[in-house]
């Protein structure tokens, strides 16, 4: 299994090409006549020189060194690694979607605007909000966009003292980071032993300086914040807004809507719940939904439906402004729309039902072998603690690495921060019972190995193309790019 893979630069041989451009059909003019001497590039960039077959072999070899959802189970908590439908990919590649320019006259892109408008309508209904913008490029971008709107809302009310955003201690790291970038201070609210936001602590931290409370529901422990109505009341009474981090929306489609729970702003991760593929880290798409009182602050432009068709409205005097060039990650939005239209209302509801069924099934079957810190029904994901195994000298990291030997992607580990030796498992609804059982069996075997033969876990992985990597040296002496060896070309 272990093997080396040369870099594309190391496969390079001067002269080879993998492109085909037409011959120049306008009069040839030397570029040096068009560019002033100082601005004419003299040192060529060291880019690869490979044939087309070399190129395909290189990237095919790289792909084989990568695990995706199509390769095997990927229960990475909070990331909703569900199946990425293939029709979505085909639709996004239609020339009328893939090859349209964002600045074309509106009358030439009515199909695209119609799709965006209808996607917004669908997302409004799914979340229970009054308006949706598709502009943010990802979840974190949506968080910042939503917070900027909340800031604009308070300021429009002449309220300039709301400087604080409250986040639970179990929150995603992006929440406090987005608050900082939007110019707020972050205040942390504690969780109770039950894994829910501590209402008493919330009452303590909320006040006239509260701009918003950011909440994921179900939360990052996979638990539904059952006091959500009281929480909304506490925050709203203090004049703050309620922000919904949509990372975990996959648990409640057609079962509950953030808008009905009292949330004022919602962001969605279309690359999670709505099957835009994760792409190895992106591109994603992070639409934001708002209640009516925040509509004037939506980023511009806003898509409107008029007598002569759809148009982009730039005349939004109270808008927070543009958050991204053009109109969001359209290509991902096309995929999400295709997915929603493939599922329908009952299909979407079934998505959440099976996501929750699968998580609870796994949780119950594993509870005997690993510590279950919160023993109640979970939603689409759950957390286990590896503290029992830690006493045997086997860390959660070791368990994660051992899972690689079984062909599984490990769960999210060491998050949320409030659970010791945490493993956060999200199976999603697209996995079969056989797959869940195979993963459960592997986890049970690892638990037994931790007792009987801990070395095999501690030294894992045994079957991957590389062993554990030295991350300390990588950070201490960073090598962030390839350097051509000197005197190598003669």
């Amino acid at each position, binding site marked *: 299994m272990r093997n080396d893979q040369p870099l*594309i630069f190391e496969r390079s041989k001067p002269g080879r*090409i993998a*492109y085909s451009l037409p011959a120049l059909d306008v009069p040839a003019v030397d570029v040096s006549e068009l560019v*002033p001497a*100082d*601005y004419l590039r003299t040192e*060529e960039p*060291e*880019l690869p020189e490979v044939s087309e077959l070399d190129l395909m072999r290189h990237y*095919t070899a*790289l792909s*084989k060194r990568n*695990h995706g959802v199509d390769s095997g189970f990927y229960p990475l908590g909070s990331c909703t690694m569900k199946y990425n439908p293939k029709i979505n*990919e085909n639709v*996004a590649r239609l*020339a*009328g979607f*893939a*090859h*349209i*320019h*964002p600045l074309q006259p509106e009358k030439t892109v*009515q*199909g695209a605007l119609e799709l965006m408008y209808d996607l917004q309508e669908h997302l409004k*209904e*799914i979340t229970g909000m009054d308006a949706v913008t598709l502009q943010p*490029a990802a979840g*974190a971008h949506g968080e910042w966009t939503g917070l900027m709107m909340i800031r604009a809302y308070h300021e429009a009310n002449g309220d300039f003292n709301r400087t604080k955003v409250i986040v639970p201690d179990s929150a995603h790291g*992006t929440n406090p980071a987005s608050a*900082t970038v939007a110019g707020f201070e972050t205040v942390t609210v504690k969780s109770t032993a039950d894994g829910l936001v501590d209402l008493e602590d919330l009452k303590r931290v909320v006040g006239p300086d509260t701009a918003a409370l950011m909440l994921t529901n179900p939360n990052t422990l996979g638990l539904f914040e059952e006091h959500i*109505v009281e929480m909304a009341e506490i925050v709203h009474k203090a004049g703050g807004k309620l922000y919904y981090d949509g990372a975990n929306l996959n648990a409640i489609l*057609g079962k509950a809507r953030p808008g009905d729970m009292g949330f004022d702003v919602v962001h969605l991760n279309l690359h999670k719940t709505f099957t835009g593929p*994760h792409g*190895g880290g992106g591109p994603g798409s992070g639409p934001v939904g708002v209640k009516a009182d925040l509509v004037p602050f939506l*980023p511009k432009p806003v898509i409107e439906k008029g007598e002569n068709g759809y148009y982009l409205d730039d005349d939004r005097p109270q808008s927070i*402004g543009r*958050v*991204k*060039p053009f109109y*969001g990650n359209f*290509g991902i939005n096309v995929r999400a729309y*295709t997915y929603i*239209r493939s599922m*329908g209302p009952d299909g*979407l509801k*079934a998505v959440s039902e099976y996501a929750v*069924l699968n998580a609870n*099934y796994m949780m119950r079957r594993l509870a005997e072998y690993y510590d279950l810190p919160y023993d109640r*029904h979970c939603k689409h994901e759950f957390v286990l603690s590896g503290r029992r195994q830690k006493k045997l000298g086997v860390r959660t990291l070791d368990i994660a*690495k051992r899972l690689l030997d079984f062909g599984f*992607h*490990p769960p999210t580990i060491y998050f949320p921060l409030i659970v010791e030796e945490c493993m956060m498992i999200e199976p999603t609804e697209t*996995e*079969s019972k056989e797959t869940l059982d195979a993963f459960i069996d592997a986890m049970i075997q690892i638990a037994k190995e931790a007792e009987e033969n801990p070395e095999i876990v501690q030294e894992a992985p045994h079957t991957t193309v590389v062993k554990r990597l030295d*991350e300390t*040296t*990588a*950070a201490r002496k*960073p090598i*962030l790019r390839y350097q051509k060896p000197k005197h190598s070309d003669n």
Partner: protein
Amino acid sequence: MTIPKRQGKGKNAVLHRYLPMTEEDKQEMLKTIGVASIDDLFADIPEQVRFRGELKVKPAKSEPELWKELAALAEKNASVKQYVSFLGAGVYDHYIPAVVDHVLSRSEFYTAYTPYQPEISQGELQAIFEFQTMVCELTGMDVANSSMYDGGTALAEAVLLSAAHTKRKKVLISTAVHPQYREVVRTYAKGQKLEVKEIPYDGGITDLKALEAEMGDDVACVVVQYPNFFGQIEPLKAIAPLAHEKKSLFVVASNPLALGVLTPPGAFGADIVVGDMQPFGIPTQFGGPHCGYFAVKAPLMRKIPGRLVGQTTDEDGRRGFVLTLQAREQHIRRDKATSNICSNQALNALAASVALSALGKRGVKEMAAMNMQKAHYAKVELEKRGLSSPFAGPFFNEFVIRLGRPVSDVNDRLLEKGIIGGYDLGADYPELAGHMLVAVTELRTKEEIDRFVNELGDGHA
């Protein structure tokens, strides 16, 4: 017609092709959990916020029906493949080597997430490491990250980095920078309470005298675009010292394709270079997703936003790659992070890497030169027809032409002839009403350019 709600009967019934659980599976699982129904698992949702009834979303369609409907919707759009396009303004119709989509379609890449488990993500990590190297090579910079959302937000992040690094609050940005990029910078600046001061252009490039007059010890960074929004080649050599004299950072937004022929910003002393890799292998797709890039000089390495991939070794000394310097990032730093970016545009970075590998050293130069030659040919031909440009300076693949008529009228007529005309500058630059920004890429043939020139030149269009 919609698909049936349930397919198959009894214990074999399933709901959807994406939902594999049979009725029998479900019953077994409920038994293991110890509940009677799935609804019992949702009992923790308070009654008053539980959603009853059915979502008012369109009913599900079968695969062939949905395909037909969405293909028809796509047909309602005029694609740049069907029309002849001279529209650029930051997004360009370029040659995409066929290999690009074949690599992107490897689902080991597109169905993976961020490479948190390096042992089973070496492919993605190595691809990003190669991408980082290519960005450094093109821009002449020391360190590049794994990508940003797009050129506009990358520029905004560069401004935030500059302010945090210099502990200064004033940002000078040329009005010859893409208008939408400037708007995004202004939105980001509001959150951080930065003052964004725009520096006018003169003769199509940044007004150096105006810039010099605004320079001071309070300036975090000077931002220009190269080539700028008008296609003109900004005199980076003259601008860099103005910024550095006051210990401000010099930020350059750059079309990476132009760097196939132009001296890279790094060579002029740029501290941060950003832009969009869209010209390399990424379709226009209505403005996104594209792929921002972000490159810095070595002293700023530990302040760069976003994910970085580093080379290291495994326990046997074998080369491998990992996400590194993560102490900068939001999931570690939380509210102390200077950027909240979490995801990147890995798949589009891969597209750009594949396109750059396909084009290679020779192809990038050839393609860049071809853009320049065709754009110059178009401008010369238009000038022969009596149309003039307000700007005389050197330019890359875009230039401004004075029409003396409303650009939208001209574009309407061009459309009837199967041509998507250039960008109407009047909306962003009132003084340039009646001026069109024309982009000519390597994909435009001489015959297409001549047709465009004829349409504009004889006054019919």
